[in-house]
């Protein structure tokens, strides 16, 4: 195995008195696809948001691409350049066109010129299958299309790591597949991905490692096969039986 690109050691996080993350340890290799799942309130979103410092962890260390996350603003900026994120609610900028949404980061953070940024944006839109929507506003697109634009926006920064925070949870059922297809293609291309999701079909097909979170801890981890076929912990078995029943 090559060297890990994300290293988390004993990560803790409190919201006031509430202990949201209780000592998470995780290593993610380059090109690895990690799926994090678990009941709501288990801290999985909180954890993934710590990786690019949307949330601040209060104890332990997180090292991303060789840079340790600390209060140093330059470190945070450097990590955010290398880490793309896709949100449950898409969070596209409603006042900008699809094209402007995608090129904003490359132009102002990567300092590319506009032509180069737009060319790459067009390529990305083709990759996610909606090149014809480039000059529309997000409000004119369907949820699935918006989420694909959000993926393109994150990819436009040419990140080394992509974080997905429940990317399909806010979508209508018939739009989930188009987003998962894009993510699957991305995983096959060798992108390092950390995905919080309840899409177990996707996890089984794509994940290298799965982590089951409960009450701010990693209860169990392993390959999809280990998790689905031979879960060790009772909590994991119970959760899986509940979400796989129908």
């Amino acid at each position, binding site marked *: 195995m090559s060297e890990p690109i994300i290293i988390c050691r004993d990560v803790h996080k409190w919201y006031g008195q509430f202990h949201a993350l209780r000592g998470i340890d995780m290593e993610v290799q380059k090109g690895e696809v990690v799926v994090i799942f678990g009941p709501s309130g288990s801290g999985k979103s909180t954890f993934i948001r710590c990786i690019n410092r949307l949330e601040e962890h209060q104890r332990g260390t997180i090292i991303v691409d060789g840079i340790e996350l600390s209060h140093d603003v330059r470190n945070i900026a450097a990590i955010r350049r290398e880490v793309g994120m896709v*949100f449950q609610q898409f969070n596209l900028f*409603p006042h900008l066109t699809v094209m402007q949404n995608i090129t904003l980061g490359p132009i102002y953070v990567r300092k590319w010129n506009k032509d180069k940024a737009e060319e790459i944006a067009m390529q990305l839109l083709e990759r996610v299958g909606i090149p014809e929507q480039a000059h529309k506003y997000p409000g004119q697109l369907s949820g699935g299309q918006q989420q694909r634009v959000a993926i393109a*926006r994150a990819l436009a920064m040419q990140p080394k790591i992509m974080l997905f925070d429940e990317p399909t949870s806010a979508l209508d059922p018939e739009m989930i597949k188009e987003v998962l297809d894009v993510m699957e293609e991305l995983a096959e291309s060798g992108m390092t991905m950390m995905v919080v999701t309840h899409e177990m079909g996707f996890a089984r097909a794509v994940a290298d490692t799965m982590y089951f979170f409960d009450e701010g801890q990693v209860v169990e981890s392993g390959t999809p096969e280990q998790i689905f076929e031979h879960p060790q912990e009772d909590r994991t078995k119970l959760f899986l039986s509940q979400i796989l029943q129908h």
Partner: protein
Amino acid sequence: MTTTLTSQKEILPPPTERFTILGWLKKNLFGTWFDAILTVVSGLFIIYVLYMGFRWILTTAQWAAVTDNLQLYMKGQYPASEDWRLWLLMYLFALIIGLMWGVFLRRAEAVGWILLAVPVILALWMVKLERAAWLNLLIMDAAAIVGYFLGRRYPQRLQRPTIILILLYMPLVILIVRGFGESGFLPLVTTNLWGGLLLSLLLAIFGIVFSFPVGVLLALGRQSRMPAIKTLCVVYIEIIRGVPLITLLFMGQLMLPFFLPAGITIDRVIRAAVAIIMFAAAYMAENVRGGLQSIPKGQYEAADAIGLNGVQKMVFIILPQALRAVIPVLVGQFIGLFKDTSLVALVGLLDLLGIARGILANPNYIGRQLEVFAFIALIYWVFSYAMSYGSERLETALGVGER
């Protein structure tokens, strides 16, 4: 499903209602007995009010106090030899309005043609207006029409120049109205000679142009995570909002000189303008804060996640959305600010209201309050309504309220 759809149903257009005047009247005004009575009563009332109004305007009222002093109302004591500067600015103003109309709206509208017709009608009517004045008004018309057609012809290419022209116009106004140097080209016209509508508009423009950025900064400061900045902004906003504008104006005029070292004086108009700006900025800040709070947290997070720094996040993501959301409120405030400038008359400046009071003090015009105040009310209304109308257009153009 047990049944299958064998033949698809036709796609039909929505039913249309035929429009007839009688049909409209019946539906809207005479639907029921009660409606009919209401319509008749309010119709009679409107006719009565209009009749009394027009009778007063055309017969009872004596308009000498207005028509004799049009120059004073418009520009106060501004020297007649420098009138051309004001007209020049008016031409430019008309050109800009025409351009904006052509570039951003791209269609002719009744309101525009009515406004353009005003000088022509005045000229035909031969109201006590000097030949030069209506000639100037006609040139303004021409400038507006040229701007409109240019804008319609090259909407894409002229978009940026138009916006630059609008931004440049404000400093240009100050520069040209004030002038510089002792003599020669554009000699200095000191502010004590500025007056009438000219002064009112200048104060309003000053107030709007400067209070806006200050207000935005205060709003951002109030949201700041740095306690010193936050406290400072909160204290400023709450103190200013707790004080009437008139007291700020009096403080500026009467108290400020005590604090300044001997020999240094600040122009009275500037002192008034600063008081207005300080006052408006505090209210502006609260309105902008309302806009900022309407932006969902996800927008901040998305901006962070793509790596924008704090300034970029505000400039590209948060402020455009926040300000767009509060355009109606801001324009309402601008209108209020324009009318509030009339308070400077109470500290002795000769703005539109100040001039009106001066004219009423003239023994020749004793008892002509009604005419004079009706006239300046009309002027205030025209400008306020123009702003209101403009903002409505702006909202439509920017798609406020739709996502």
